[in-house]
């Protein structure tokens, strides 16, 4: 019998398509097709730019990213190219600078980001940008995060020799409900035009006039009013487009940024909360290429004013003869325990919220177990998603509620409502929801002997409750949530809760203890570790391991429309991604 043929050896992996590029004297390797500006960024050499953005097409019109470039000259036929001291072909430097944002690297290319030519060119472009720019720094909101300011300090001339009159254009133009335009400050980089046309599919902005009188305007009859208009304010490198909500509120250098997650819907767009002291002034999107790219919708972004509202609950209260009286935390918690312990499980209901963090829901589950009740649910909120980032599920942590409480959000509500209307419930804990807005009837709620509300705002539901416990809002929480795509993400505390309000998770823990459970968890990290031990989806995770960008923990079929389209454009090479 002939010997069986040996199986062919597996083919070696093909070499990655890398090219050699010399940046400021150092030879590095980059994948073919990398833009020069990205190559410099990876080599830790920042190239100043205005019009370039990794998620938008590159028009190359600001000319700020001009760098000195060189290619090895083609040798005469039959001759070897001249080599330098690294053994690489010697580079012939071109006297004319090229833009780094739209050109890709090639084999043997050399880039100089700090040479005399590059510095002179940058000084020149900077000077041109400043000659018609108005003297608005003291009144402009962009001061402190203005790229014109930064680059003129780093790369500018330092002195002006412009003696003429500056070009005058319309200022303080109303182009939409949330965005204000100042044409004199505009440097005509066209980022806003490209964003509204390419990403938001609403090409309402465009240039009018020509030459130095070019003016940005909304097209006749149009307004910049779609739900993603405030992203143009983020990407505008100068103070031409500013947010009406943030206008003249505070200077940016006083604000501290904290990583957090938007609570507007289940997408869980990563954002930064900017606050000074205990007041939030604005929220901006954070880059996360698995969730929201660099963008965020206006509705979610502007929904923070309630955190500083005068209607915040600041003290625990207990109803005494029909009137709420402020009491101490110890007494309030004890009052809840007195009302609930000993009552049969079927006569207790806990209505939690899918706006609570995983850690808080963990304690809700424990509380339900201790009180022996199965009547635990969260209020679902289904709305309409748009074709960009906004998800149809308007609760930020539905997946967390499902995972931890073990049931589909809203599945037990009908049963609870039934029990309530028949007067069968003696204790109802409303945690984070205004029951009157969630489909419960006032007359049913009035039947409940012990209605406990844990909330942040004084609302009708709290008005009816016997015991009111002030919790903390999302910006004051440290915790984790799972978004609709199954990604576990972290939020951090940006401001402190007002008055005597406490962390919701701590209140729930104290309730658990008062109702007979055990203590032992004193920090969010410990809570999460306990969660990770009990929930298989969190296996191996810790609060620190979630990281700033989150980790995927669940498999879902959810696709993010805006990100899908960005992937397509990246595949076509239009954007860097």
């Amino acid at each position, binding site marked *: 019998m002939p010997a069986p043929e040996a199986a062919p050896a597996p083919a070696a992996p093909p070499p990655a398509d890398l090219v050699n590029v010399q940046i400021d004297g150092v030879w590095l390797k980059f994948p073919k097709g990398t833009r020069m500006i990205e190559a410099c960024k990876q080599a830790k050499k920042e190239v100043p730019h205005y019009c370039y953005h990794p998620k938008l097409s590159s028009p190359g019109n600001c000319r700020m990213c001009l760098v000195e470039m060189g290619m090895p000259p083609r040798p005469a036929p039959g001759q070897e190219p001249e080599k330098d001291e690294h053994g690489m072909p010697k580079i012939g430097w071109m006297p004319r600078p090229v833009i780094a944002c739209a050109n890709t690297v090639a084999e043997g290319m050399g880039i100089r980001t700090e040479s005399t030519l590059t510095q002179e060119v940058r000084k020149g472009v900077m000077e041109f940008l400043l000659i018609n720019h108005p003297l608005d720094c003291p009144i402009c909101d962009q001061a402190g995060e203005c790229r014109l300011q930064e680059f003129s300090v780093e790369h500018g001339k330092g002195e002006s020799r412009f003696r003429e009159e500056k070009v005058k254009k319309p*200022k303080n133009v109303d182009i939409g409900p949330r965005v204000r335009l100042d044409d004199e400050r505009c440097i005509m980089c066209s980022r806003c035009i490209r964003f509204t046309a390419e990403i938001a599919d609403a090409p309402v902005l465009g240039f009018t006039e020509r030459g130095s009188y070019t003016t940005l305007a909304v097209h006749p009859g149009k307004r910049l009013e779609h739900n993603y208009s405030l992203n143009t304010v983020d990407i505008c490198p100068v103070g031409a487009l500013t947010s009406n909500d943030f206008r003249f509120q*505070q200077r940016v*250098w006083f604000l501290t940024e904290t990583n957090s997650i938007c609570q507007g819907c289940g997408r869980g767009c990563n954002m930064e909360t900017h606050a000074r002291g205990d007041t939030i002034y604005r929220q901006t999107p954070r880059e996360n290429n698995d969730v929201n790219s660099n963008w965020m919708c206006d509705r979610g972004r502007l929904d923070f004013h309630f955190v500083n509202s005068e209607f915040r609950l600041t003290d625990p209260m207990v109803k005494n003869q029909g009137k709420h009286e402020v009491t101490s935390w110890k007494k309030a918690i004890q009052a809840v325990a007195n009302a609930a312990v000993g009552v049969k499980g079927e006569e207790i209901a806990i209505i939690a919220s899918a706006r609570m963090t995983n850690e808080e829901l963990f304690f809700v589950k424990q509380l339900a177990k201790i009180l022996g009740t199965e009547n635990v649910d969260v209020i679902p909120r289904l709305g309409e998603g748009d074709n960009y980032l906004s998800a149809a599920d308007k609760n930020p942590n539905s997946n967390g509620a499902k995972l931890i409480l073990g049931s589909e959000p809203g599945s037990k509500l009908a049963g609870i409502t039934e029990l309530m209307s028949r007067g069968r419930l003696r204790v109802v804990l409303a945690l984070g929801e205004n029951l009157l807005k969630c489909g419960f009837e006032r007359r049913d709620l009035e039947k409940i002997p012990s209605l406990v509300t844990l909330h942040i705002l004084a609302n009708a539901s709290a008005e009816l409750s016997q015991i009111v416990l002030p919790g903390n809002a999302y910006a004051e929480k440290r915790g984790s949530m799972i978004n609709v795509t199954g990604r576990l993400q972290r939020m951090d505390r940006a401001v402190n809760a007002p008055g005597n309000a406490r962390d919701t998770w701590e209140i729930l823990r104290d309730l658990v203890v008062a109702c007979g459970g055990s203590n032992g968890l004193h920090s969010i990290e410990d809570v999460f570790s306990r969660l990770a031990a009990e929930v298989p989806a969190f296996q191996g995770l810790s609060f620190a391991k979630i990281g700033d960008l989150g980790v995927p923990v669940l498999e879902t079929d959810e696709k993010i429309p805006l990100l899908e389209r960005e992937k397509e454009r990246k595949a076509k090479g239009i954007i860097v991604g």
Partner: protein
Amino acid sequence: MAIITVQRPKLAWHEKAFISTLFKGLKITLSHALRTFLQIAGKKPKVTMEYPEQKWDDQLPDYYRGAPALVTDEHERERCVSCQLCEFICPPKAITITPGEIPSDDPWAKVEKRPKEFEIDMIRCIYCGMCEEVCPEQAIFLRKDYAITGLSRKEMVHDKKRLYEIGGQRVGLVNKWNELK
């Protein structure tokens, strides 16, 4: 390293007994006393200014740093645009500003920004002059008054009205907001 032996100085008997140093000290004391007597007698100029009977307000040098105040210009416009640079640079954080918008029907609507509230806590103020130096609008200046007193902490906080009162009008500055068209 070589060891150098230092000789003790040889002292005379009056130096050992501190008699000469005694006399040297006494000489200085007596000359000071004589000078003071002569000052009292009016023969020599006094060095001590007897405040508050004597004040040097009219001899304050140009660079003297008194209390900060906000100024208006020739057109009675409040120069401050609440850029909050002084609030940032103030070392003891004595300045608190709430910026606000100028309504569009105001004659100075072009300037767009004006402080809603502007407070300087004079108890915190250290009269360093950083606010005057950093102001891009030439709106805040340190005046020559130094005797800032009050009977309560609340009184010692100068609000916007008071600051413009103290500051008054100042001409001779750059008026970059004056309209040309």
